[in-house]
């Protein structure tokens, strides 16, 4: 990368920082939310949730998965986008109305048990860690492409992992990145802008979506492999019809029949158990607003992933044609196909925008990584500091001690993620998965969807859920998921191994069944009716809305009222 590119990257990041600092939000109280107008408030919250949710896996990983396996990679986009539908249907409004800050808090108070809280913390930490690793991997890969060299003694990839994780961990720990609604929203807008710019450039460059898909589907899908003969292209085997070639536009390039469903369901179920996303719901002023926020998130996610899928397709088409004329691209490709699929979007950016284009996409990727890592580390710090340290290790902790406990846990979690990212470096993993970043994120979704989501939904919708049942359910879901991962890493035969790395299809029903069976044998908490009133009643919502209305009427005067009425 030359000076111009580096300069652009620096400028983009500086602009983000300035916007974040200067266009300071009003506060985030309920009244402010209403002052901003319901719709603005809901939209801002939705953007912030997107900022937490869209990570390197979405930005680089989805395009990479489509790039490598065509339609089978599109299932990642479908699954990531679909995940918010169950959240909307089952979780958003009751979770907000119950009014606890995190998933362990929620389960702990709902079931009246500290044991549930601690087990939930353990699962949440597992989810956070498995989500952090692919983010670190993603930033390592971006560094590799962008800078190309590492600090003395370590590789470019390792440098990227270490530098990005360390910088963000320090920022988070010392309060430079509070993950406020506004910061996350701006970061998502940057991400979306990068994607929209690239899509516009690609379309303006004469890319025809439908034509490209049919053209790509007309020949077998082949991807680079590295073996004794060096780099060469090897056609993908069709896992749906053994013996046939897989093509871009048809399923089968990456997943067998069962694994197709397993992947989608894993992603669909996982979102409701992602701690950093669920924590964000508590910034909505009411349950109803939380619900409408989710609708916006679904819309934004749809737009984002539709663009990502298109760009994945475009990179397969465009890079193959562009490679022969560009020496820098030939280093990265084998016969016009990228060796590292995660490079698809940055390379596309460089083809259309030169070094500045590359810098814009790289900035997008870094922002995606940063906002997600920040969200995850904050969630981790909150659950260690609040749920474990303040309640169990040192109940009499001062504010200062609690803050330091949070910082220490941030550091520990960040170091663990970086180490795992270095150990699990992409080359060490089999190239059976379409995109290593997207696949690794799937593990986090699998743990969340198998261990947390079933218990979470039961606790919200079934009065009979008990603490013992929840503990048993979470333990079953978590352990069976990890066990299936381990078995899946062994050579157990084609078709089955894909399914084992996306275990929600089996683990979630198992966890649900165990939770229900154990709950039936134990007594639910005595105050369940009272909890039902806060979970499913709207009295609190109505009270909040009324107070906000009164406050606004009293402070803003007739002009504001007229405006509100005209606005609907």
């Amino acid at each position: 990368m030359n000076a111009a590119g580096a300069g652009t990257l620096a400028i983009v990041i500086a602009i983000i920082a300035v916007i974040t600092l200067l266009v300071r939000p009003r506060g985030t109280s309920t009244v402010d939310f209403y002052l901003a107008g319901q719709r603005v408030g809901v939209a801002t919250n939705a953007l912030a949730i997107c900022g937490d949710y869209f990570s390197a896996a979405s930005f680089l990983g989805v395009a990479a998965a489509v790039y490598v396996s065509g339609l089978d990679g599109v299932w990642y986009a479908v699954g990531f986008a679909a995940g918010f539908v169950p959240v909307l249907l089952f979780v958003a409004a009751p979770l907000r109305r119950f009014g606890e800050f995190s998933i362990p808090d929620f389960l702990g108070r709902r079931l009246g048990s500290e044991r549930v809280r601690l087990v939930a913390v353990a699962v949440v930490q597992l989810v956070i860690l498995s989500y952090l690793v692919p983010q670190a991997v993603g930033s390592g890969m971006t560094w590799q492409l962008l800078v190309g060299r590492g600090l003395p003694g370590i590789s470019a990839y390792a440098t990227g992992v270490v530098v990005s994780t360390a910088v963000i961990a320090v920022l988070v720990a010392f309060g430079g990145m509070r993950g406020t609604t506004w910061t996350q929203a701006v970061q998502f807008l940057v991400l979306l802008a990068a994607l929209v710019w690239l899509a516009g450039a690609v379309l303006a460059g004469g890319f025809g979506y439908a034509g490209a898909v049919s053209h790509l589907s007309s020949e077998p899908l082949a991807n680079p492999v590295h073996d004794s003969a060096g780099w060469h292209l090897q056609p993908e085997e069709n896992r749906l019809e053994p013996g046939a070639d897989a093509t871009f536009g048809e399923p089968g390039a990456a997943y067998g029949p069962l694994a197709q469903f397993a992947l989608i369901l894993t992603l669909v179920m996982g979102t409701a158990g992602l701690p950093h996303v669920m924590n964000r719901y508590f910034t909505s002023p009411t349950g109803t607003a939380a619900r409408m926020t989710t609708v916006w998130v679904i819309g934004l996610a749809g737009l984002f992933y539709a663009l990502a899928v298109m760009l994945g397709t475009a990179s397969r088409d465009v890079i193959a044609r562009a490679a022969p004329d560009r020496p820098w691209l030939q280093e990265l490709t084998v016969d016009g196909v990228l060796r590292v699929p995660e490079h698809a979007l940055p390379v596309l950016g460089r083809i259309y925008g030169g070094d500045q284009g590359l810098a814009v996409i790289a900035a997008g990727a870094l922002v995606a990584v940063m906002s997600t890592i920040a969200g995850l580390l904050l969630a981790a710090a909150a659950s260690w500091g609040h749920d474990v340290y303040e309640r169990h290790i040192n109940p009499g902790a001062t504010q200062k001690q609690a803050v330091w406990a949070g910082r220490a846990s941030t550091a520990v979690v960040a170091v663990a993620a970086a180490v795992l990212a270095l150990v699990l470096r992409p080359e060490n993993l089999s190239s059976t998965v379409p995109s290593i970043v997207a696949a690794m994120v799937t593990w986090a979704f699998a743990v969340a969807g198998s261990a947390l989501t079933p218990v979470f939904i039961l606790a919200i919708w079934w009065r009979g859920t008990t603490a013992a049942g929840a503990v048993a359910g979470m333990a079953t879901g978590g352990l069976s998921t990890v066990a299936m991962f381990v078995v899946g890493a062994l050579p157990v035969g084609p078709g089955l191994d894909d399914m084992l790395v996306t275990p929600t299809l089996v683990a979630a029903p198992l966890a649900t069944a165990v939770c229900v069976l154990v709950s039936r044998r134990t007594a639910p908490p005595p105050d369940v009716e009272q909890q039902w009133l806060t979970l499913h009643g709207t009295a609190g919502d109505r009270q909040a809305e009324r107070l906000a209305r009164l406050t606004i009427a009293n402070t803003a005067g007739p002009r504001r009222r007229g405006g509100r009425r005209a606005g609907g």
Partner: protein
Amino acid sequence: MDPDDVDEHDTPAEVDAAFRTLRRVAITHFLLFLAVVTGVPALSLTLGWWSDARIEGGLSPGFAMAAFGLYAFFLVVGLAAATLSNAVESRMLGGDHPGADGADRHEDQQ
């Protein structure tokens, strides 16, 4: 009497009623959602036409569905479920007070 002085209040029976109705809304929408989400890969496994036919321009119905159709469907299902749930809540809980126009505001967010 000034109703603004009185805290909002729901009785357990009313909350239970709204809960049941909302549960029904959530489950029906979830079943629809699940049918479509698993239906797309299922069709590509079972129906040759789904992957082989070409919509004008060149995409197969299956690819078009996965590339844009499903996201639009998610939005429609989400919007339908959210507005229906909000309307149910505003009708089944609370009552004769200005809160009723709360439903109108959520209404025009769609």
